[in-house]
C-alpha cells in the first residue's frame, strides 16, 4: 500500500534532526516566518499595552466575586516573549520535529493571552462568557463539520451543509412549536437533515452531478424552500408555528461542579452533550470499525475497494445519510438550541464555516472540532471586544476564521490533503 491509504493525520514520523529534505526546510521556514510574524505582533501588542490591571471575570454574570486580575503589561510582555521563544525554537530547529505542534499551540495561547491583556487592560474581560460563547458558536459548527467529515471521507463533497442546517433549524422550530416536544423536534431535524442528504446522495452518486455544483444548488434550494414556507406559514401564524421551546440546560452531577470549566462544559443542553458524543463516536467509528475502514477506502480508492468486494455506492449512501443526521441536529441548534424562533437564512453562512473547519481540521473529526472551536472563539471574541470597546473593528476579527482557512489551504501551515477520490463519482465500466 502506498501512503495514499494511510491517514495523513495519524502518522507523524520523527525525522532525524540532522537531515532535512529541501521541501521540509522550505516549509519550516515558511511556517516559521508566519509564526514569527504572529509572535512579533503579540510582542508589539504587549509593548502598547496600557498599564494597570487586566481583570478577568471567571463566573458569568458575577461582577463582584471570582475576579482574576493580572498586571496587564507585564503579563502581556511575558507571554509575548514566550511566544517569540516558541517561534524562534521552531525556526531554528531547537526542538525535535515531532514537538512542532506543541510549539505552535504554545504560540497560539501566548498570542491570544497577550492580545487579551492588551484588550482588557484597565477593564474587565468576561472570560467565562468568552468560553461559554465559544462553545455556543462552535456546537453547530462541530456537528456540521463532522457531517462533512463523514461525507468527504466517503468521497462525496458536501458543500450543502448550510442547506442542511437551514432545513434542520426550520423543522426543529416548527415541530417544537406544534408538538411542544423537544425530543420530537430533534428527531425531526435529524430526519430533514437526512432528507437533504438523500438529495445530495442521489444526485451525486446516482446521477453523477458535479458535487460542488450540487452543493451550491442545494443551499439555494434549502434557502428558497425554508424561506417560502416561512413566508407562507410561519409568518402568518407565528404564535403557533414559530415559538419553539429552547432546550434547557441539564447539569451533569459532579462534572458540573468543577470550578470554572464545570459550568461551561457540563451545564449545557442535550444538544451540546450530543455533540461531545458525536465527536467521539465519529472518531471511533471512522478509525476503529470495519464500516469506518470501508468509508475511508471508498473515499480514497473506490476501484480498489470495489475489487475487494466493498459495495462502493452503498457505503457512500450510508455515510452521506448518517452525515445528514449530524447536520440536521446542527441545524436544530440554531433554533431550539439557542435562538428560539426561526428566521429566514438564519444560519448566516455557518454551514460554510463548518466546511472551512472540516478542511482546516484536515478531514479529521478531532481536527475539525478544534478548528470549529477556534472559529467559535474568534466569533465570540469579536462580540466581547465590542462590549468592552477596543479599537479593533469587530468586522476585521470576524474575518479571522476565513483568512486562517485560506492560509491553511494555501499550504502555509502544513499540507492539507483531501481524501483522494473526494468529489469523484464512482462509475463502473
Amino acid at each position: 500500500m502506498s501512503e495514499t491509504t494511510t491517514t495523513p493525520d495519524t502518522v507523524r514520523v520523527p525525522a532525524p534532526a540532522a537531515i532535512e529534505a529541501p521541501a521540509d526546510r522550505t516549509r519550516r521556514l515558511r511556517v516559521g516566518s508566519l509564526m514569527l510574524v504572529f509572535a512579533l505582533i503579540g510582542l508589539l501588542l504587549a509593548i502598547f499595552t496600557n498599564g494597570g490591571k487586566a481583570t478577568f471575570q471567571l463566573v458569568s454574570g458575577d461582577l463582584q466575586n471570582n475576579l482574576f486580575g493580572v498586571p496587564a503589561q507585564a503579563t502581556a510582555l511575558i507571554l509575548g516573549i514566550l511566544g517569540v521563544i516558541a517561534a524562534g525554537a521552531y525556526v531554528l530547529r531547537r526542538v525535535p520535529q515531532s514537538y512542532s505542534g506543541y510549539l505552535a499551540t504554545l504560540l497560539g495561547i501566548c498570542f491570544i493571552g497577550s492580545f487579551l491583556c492588551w484588550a482588557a487592560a484597565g477593564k474587565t474581560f468576561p472570560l467565562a462568557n468568552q468560553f461559554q460563547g465559544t462553545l455556543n458558536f462552535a456546537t453547530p459548527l462541530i456537528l456540521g463539520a463532522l457531517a462533512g467529515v463523514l461525507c468527504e471521507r466517503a468521497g462525496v463533497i458536501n458543500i450543502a451543509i448550510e442547506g442542511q442546517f437551514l432545513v434542520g433549524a426550520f423543522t426543529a422550530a416548527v415541530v417544537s412549536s406544534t408538538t411542544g416536544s423537544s425530543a420530537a423536534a430533534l428527531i425531526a431535524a435529524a430526519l430533514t437533515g437526512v432528507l437533504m442528504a438523500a438529495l445530495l446522495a442521489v444526485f451525486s452518486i446516482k446521477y453523477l452531478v458535479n458535487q460542488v455544483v450540487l452543493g451550491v444548488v442545494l443551499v439555494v434550494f434549502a434557502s428558497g424552500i425554508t424561506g417560502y414556507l416561512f413566508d407562507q406559514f410561519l409568518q402568518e401564524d407565528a404564535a403557533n408555528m414559530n415559538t419553539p421551546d429552547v432546550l434547557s440546560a441539564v447539569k451533569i452531577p459532579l462534572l458540573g461542579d468543577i470550578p470554572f470549566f464545570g459550568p461551561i462544559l457540563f451545564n449545557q443542553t442535550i444538544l451540546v452533550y450530543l455533540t461531545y458524543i458525536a465527536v467521539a463516536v465519529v472518531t471511533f467509528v471512522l478509525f476503529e470499525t470495519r464500516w469506518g475502514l470501508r468509508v475511508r477506502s471508498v473515499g480514497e480508492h473506490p476501484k480498489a475497494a470495489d475489487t475487494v468486494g466493498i459495495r462502493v455506492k452503498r457505503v457512500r449512501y450510508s455515510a452521506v445519510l448518517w452525515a445528514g443526521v449530524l447536520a440536521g441536529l446542527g441545524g436544530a441548534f440554531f433554533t431550539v438550541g439557542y435562538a428560539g424562533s426561526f428566521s429566514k437564512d438564519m444560519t448566516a453562512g455557518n454551514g460554510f464555516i463548518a466546511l472551512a473547519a472540516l478542511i482546516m481540521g484536515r478531514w479529521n473529526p478531532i481536527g475539525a472540532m478544534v478548528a470549529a472551536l477556534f472559529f467559535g472563539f474568534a466569533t465570540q471574541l469579536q462580540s466581547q471586544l465590542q462590549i468592552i470597546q477596543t479599537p479593533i473593528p469587530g468586522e476585521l476579527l470576524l474575518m479571522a476564521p476565513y483568512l486562517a482557512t485560506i492560509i491553511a489551504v494555501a499550504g502555509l501551515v502544513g499540507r492539507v490533503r483531501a481524501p483522494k477520490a473526494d468529489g469523484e463519482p464512482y462509475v463502473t465500466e
Partner: protein
Amino acid sequence: MSNDTATEPEQTPVPAGPAKESGSGLPNWAVQGLVSLSAIVLALVVGAILIIIGDDDVTAAAGYFGAAPMDTISAALTAVGEAYKALFLGAVGGVDQIAESLTQATPLICGGLAVSLAFRAGLFNIGAQGQLIIGAIFASYVGFTWDLPPGLHLLVAVIAGLIGGALWGGVVGVLKARTGAHEVIVTIMLNYVAIYLLVWLLTTTTFKRPGRDDPISPIVKPNAQFPQFGDTRLHAGFLLALLAAVFVWWLLNRSTVGFELRAVGANADASRTAGMSVGRAYVIAMVIAGALAGLAGSQQVLGTDLPLTDGVAATIGFDAITVALLGRGTPLGTVLAGLLFGALNAGGLQMQLQTQTPLTLTTVLQAVIVLFVAAPALVRSIFPFLPKERGAGAVLAKGWNG
C-alpha cells in the same frame, strides 16, 4: 492522474461552434435547449405544488375534499394560474416590466459570465459574490469621492470596479497556481472576507454618509452614474453586460489566450505537456472572471443602487453560479439564463405584490431548474422522449484534488 475514475476529462461543455450531430439527429445545442426547457417545466410543476400547499383557498376547500373534490382542484388551479400569470406579466407584461427584468438581469449576466469563464478554464468560481463586492467598493469610491468631467468619470469608475474585482479574483488564481489551494475553498472564504470588509468600510468616515448611522455611503455623483433609459430603472450598464458577453465569446473562441484557457480546462495535464503554462491560465482566467464580477458590482452601484450599502451584492454572486450552470458555460447561454433569472426576479416581485405568493418561490424555481439541468439523466427518465446528447452531464467533475 492514472487511477482517476472514468468521469473526469470529457465533461467540459462542447464549445459553441459548428453544431455537432448527436445520435438523435438533432444538433447538441438543440438537445441541450430541450433539456433546459424540460427542466423549466419541471421546476414550474414543483413551484405549482408549493403554491397549492401554501394557498388558503385550497386549504379551505381541501377541508371538505370528500364532499366536493372539484372545489379543491379548481381552487388549486386558480391559485397556480393567478400566481404564474402575475409572475409572467410582472416579467414581460409591458415596457416597464421588461425594463425591470433587464435591470435585474444586468448584474446576473456579468456575474454569470464571471463564473462561466472560470468554468471553461476548469475553475469553479464561487467567489463572484466577493469579487462583485470589492468591485462595487472600488467603483463607488471613485464615484462619490472623485470629481471628473461627465463620461470620463463613469469610465474611470467602471475601470476601478473592474480592477477591484480583478484583484479579488486574481488572488484566487495566484494561490491556485502557486500553492494549489483549491479555488472553491478560497473563493468561499474570500466572499466572507469581502462582505466583512464592506461592512467595516461602511462604518469608516471615508465611506459613511455624513449624518447617517446605517451602513450607507453617499450617492454616486451624477457624472459617474450610468445613463438611464427613459424613466425606467434600466441603465446603460445592460448594454455593457451584452458587450461583456461578446467579449467573453471572442476571448474564448477567437483568441489564443481563450484557446489556452479552454485547453487547460479540458485537460490540464495535456496542456502542460503541450507547453502551456497551466498556472498562468488559472491566473488569467481568475483575473478576467474577477473583472467581470467587478463589472457587475459597478453596474449595481453606478446604475441601480447609486449609494453603496451592505446589501449591494444581495445574492447576485450566488445566483450568478446558477445562471452560469443553466447557461452551460457558454456566453450566449449565460446571457439567456441571466435574462430568464432576471425576469423571474422581476416577475416574482409582482407576484408577491399581487397574489401574496412569496418572492422566495422564485428562489426555489431557480434552484430546481439548475438541479434538473445538472442531472439530464433524471430529466430524461421523467421525459423519456427527449433525445440523447453527447458529452451530457456536469460541466466539470473534479474533486478537491483536481
